[in-house]
């Protein structure tokens, strides 16, 4: 993949403790899978940064190559790829996601 796209993606990932690449925005998700991840993050009461891949086709494809993961949404915590919708939902249900955020020093405030 193009080095400038890789750098831009890395920049987005480095710009927040929790970064989600999604279709649409947290207020207006344009895909059910992206909506699930947003719901989980909102429920956990954590701050996160979102990147709308629909606004930029090079990021939409680039993020898939970057993480070797063919689907969107994708969640990153402190620079580490955690997973997509299925994984985030499972980790939320088992409590592992909260644990992971805690061990990464991110405060969770479940509403």
């Amino acid at each position: 993949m193009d080095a400038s796209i890789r750098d831009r993606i890395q920049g987005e990932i480095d710009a927040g403790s929790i970064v989600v690449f999604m279709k649409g925005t947290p207020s207006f998700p344009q895909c059910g899978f992206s909506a699930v991840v947003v719901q989980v993050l909102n429920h956990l009461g954590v701050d996160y940064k979102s990147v709308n891949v629909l606004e930029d086709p090079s990021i939409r494809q680039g993020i898939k190559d970057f993480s070797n993961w063919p689907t969107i949404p994708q969640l990153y915590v402190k620079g580490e790829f955690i997973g997509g919708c299925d994984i985030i939902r499972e980790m939320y249900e088992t409590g592992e996601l909260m644990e992971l955020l805690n061990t990464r020093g991110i405060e969770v405030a479940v509403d």
Partner: protein
Amino acid sequence: MTVAATMRSKLEQAFTPALLEIVDESHRHVGHAGHSGAGESHFQIRIVAPAFEGKSRVERQRLVYGVLAEELAGPVHALALTVRTPAEAAV
């Protein structure tokens, strides 16, 4: 062969699953972006196989995505995955 049948055959060959369910959910996404109208675009797959033992969630899904790379690059717009080992599935 339908997309579902192709995926089934590839997954069976790759993982010899103890359980493999492929549900076509395309009808629930009619008119939605990525829905071609032809069906076979949105799937839910549940697979249980010993091959996933000792692998992280990300590693497991990458294995499945790898086997279905052609479908994901083509007709399949969305794929919800549940990937388990036989021991986990029995719980």
